[in-house]
């Protein structure tokens, strides 16, 4: 997927003025945020907090041991009959998948939701090679039908209202009129059944890979993940290298906290641990299972101060909790991963120069860290990225000059007092709308009047007025 994050400000401006998007995103994020609160803390705040810290420790341990765990995972998956492939770049992934497809003479590919397949632009590669690919997760199916990109890592079509989706189905698939979400879902379900039956290849992502058992773990809700991985003759799982965890015990904790954080469910509907292709005594399942382990920039992040971002389990809780995401939706972030974690991952994986507004798209309110199931310090990394923007000269000159003046003015009490006097005089004559960067302020707010006397003068007067 092309990175288009440098247009954040203008895309966000359109988003905050789009009433359909505002309706859809505030409902979606509110549901996600409030259901998570109930699911995480239904057994008391301490229990939920303990689970968070436990999950954070497990993910940090996994990242610390990543090189060893990847080798162990490869060894155990291979022993289970899974063919493990290593992809360094997005292009490598596309070529590997196309090779398998050509070898099997595939005409139709069924996919379950996978953000990494969006990251490497897999659907595009299939289409270019005349292979039909169908998304089978309802949200992703809608995205594909509407020729869009996902705006949320868990709920890809959060930016659309039910009305818009109903109209899309009526237009594209001749669905009879209905306002009932269950009826709409049933209509698509029927439509998708034949895809599962006819597909030559099924493609999934992976929520975790357990190194000690060589298992590919999938957490899904609609059942399409199970169909995609069980019905076609070939199953390909595409997984980022950072998704490896050490033990089944780790999985036990992470698989509890993931659905609680993502959708507010105590437990997911379908939980799969795939340990290879169909065995001889088994009636169904694929003949071949591939796992493609994808780097695509991750090993470079591993050596930086943003390595913490690799512990992310892609639950989307920080998106739902983020007051910026709540008003912009995900498309403004310009790549696969949106919201606070996207503001770190996109510059870290694709280069800061391709995403200069993202570290600044935050009020640093800290809610992302508060809700993160693995306690990623996103505000800390946003601050580090902002520092990098300055160091690399990627900031607006007007702020460079402004902040330099601020710094000099605040190192000297004399200059500070003088600056205050100028502002005191100036703010008396301010028009209602200001030009330049301050125009951003006065577009939505009145400017505060500076006080006639600063505190330091009131303090002196008070001291004088009192007998010492």
């Amino acid at each position, binding site marked *: 997927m092309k990175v288009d994050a440098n247009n954040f400000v203008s895309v966000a401006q359109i988003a905050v003025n789009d009433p359909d998007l505002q309706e859809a995103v505030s409902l979606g994020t509110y549901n996600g945020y409030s259901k998570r609160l109930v699911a995480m803390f239904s057994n008391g705040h301490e229990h939920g907090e303990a689970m968070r810290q436990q999950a954070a420790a497990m993910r940090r341990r996994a990242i610390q041991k990543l090189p060893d765990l990847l080798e162990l995972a490869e060894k155990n998956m291979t022993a289970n009959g899974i063919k493990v492939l290593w992809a360094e770049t997005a292009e490598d992934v596309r070529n590997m998948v196309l090779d398998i497809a050509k070898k099997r003479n595939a005409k139709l590919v069924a996919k379950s939701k996978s953000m990494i397949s969006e990251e490497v632009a897999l659907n595009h590669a299939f289409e270019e090679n005349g292979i039909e690919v169908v998304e089978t997760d309802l949200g992703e199916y809608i995205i594909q039908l509407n020729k869009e990109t996902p705006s949320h890592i868990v709920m890809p079509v959060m930016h659309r209202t039910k009305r818009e989706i109903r109209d899309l189905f009526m237009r594209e698939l001749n669905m009879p009129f209905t306002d009932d979400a269950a009826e709409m879902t049933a209509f698509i379900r029927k439509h998708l059944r034949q895809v599962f039956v006819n597909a030559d290849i099924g493609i999934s992502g992976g929520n975790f890979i357990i190194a000690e058992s060589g298992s590919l773990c999938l957490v899904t809700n609609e059942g399409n993940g199970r169909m995609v991985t069980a019905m076609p003759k070939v199953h390909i799982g595409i997984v980022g290298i950072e998704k490896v965890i050490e033990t089944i015990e780790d999985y036990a904790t992470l698989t509890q906290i993931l659905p609680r954080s993502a959708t507010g469910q105590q437990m997911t509907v379908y939980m799969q641990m795939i340990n290879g292709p169909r065995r001889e005594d088994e009636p169904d399942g694929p003949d071949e299972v591939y796992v493609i382990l994808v780097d695509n920039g991750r090993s470079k992040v591993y050596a930086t101060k943003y390595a913490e971002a690799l512990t992310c389990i892609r639950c989307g809780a920080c998106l739902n909790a983020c*007051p910026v995401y709540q008003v912009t939706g995900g498309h403004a972030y310009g790549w696969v991963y949106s919201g606070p974690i996207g503001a770190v991952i996109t510059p870290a994986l694709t280069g800061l120069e391709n995403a200069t507004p993202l570290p600044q798209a935050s009020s640093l309110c800290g809610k992302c860290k508060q809700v993160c199931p693995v306690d990623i310090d996103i505000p800390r990394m946003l601050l580090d990225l902002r520092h990098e923007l300055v160091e690399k000269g990627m900031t607006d000159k007007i702020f460079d000059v402004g902040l330099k003046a601020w710094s000099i003015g605040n190192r000297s009490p004399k200059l500070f007092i003088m600056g205050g006097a100028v502002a005191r005089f100036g703010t008396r004559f301010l028009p209602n709308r200001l030009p330049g960067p301050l125009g951003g302020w006065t577009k939505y707010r009145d400017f505060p009047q500076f006080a006639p006397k600063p505190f330091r003068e009131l303090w002196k007067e008070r001291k004088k007025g009192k007998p010492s």
Partner: protein
Amino acid sequence: MYLPERPSPKGKRVSLFVTCIVDMVYPAVGMSVVDILEHLGVEIDFPENQTCCGQPGYNSGYRNDAREVALHFLRVFADADVIVVPSGSCAAMIRHEYLTLFADDPVWLPHAQRAASITWEFTEFIVQGLGITDLKLRLPQPQTFAIHDACHGLRILGLGEEARTLLANVENAALEDLKDADACCGFGGLFSVKMADVSGAMLQKKIDCINHCPAATIITGDTSCMTQMNGGLSRQKSVKRVRHIADVLAEGLKK
């Protein structure tokens, strides 16, 4: 992160860091802080060379420029025993971010650690530092309030209960709930001008909650968030306003 141990501030002289915005824009808030601390019998000093904590530069990524300002702060407050700040955000800057700013500086890191260990947000100083929950205050007339939890005080310093406890014990003060009290007002320093439309949309959500709140007055602990919210309320001709907690408490001192 390494966090220094915090010595008890009881019985010690307080050096007041009013913050640059209180000094220049809201000096009355600073005077209210002085009134309340004097009411508690605390000895107060105001180091007159003080300016800013450095947060505007730090949060925008200008660490070298922020470091110079923070250095000035450390020099000005070198002799302080206790530093009290009527802002959760500026207190969090000194307590947490100074340790990052001076992490590689063997000369100034000990000073930064010391400053971090003796710095208290205003309500935190009273409730946690001095152990006082009832200021024995009485407002001239009954009033209703609701609290907006400013982000850095809430999520970096873990504050929130302190302000509610102090207010609950003020005679004639009734507390209501503000919907989404812990949601950001959209200020975020330069974020409010760099991403004005996003910040404005966040502010609108906050204003809607404030306008629907049964309380006449919203209380917060940070004058910067107050500027954002009051700027929007004033622009939209709302009758509601946000006040700093020190101002409301000091009103209870009047005989």
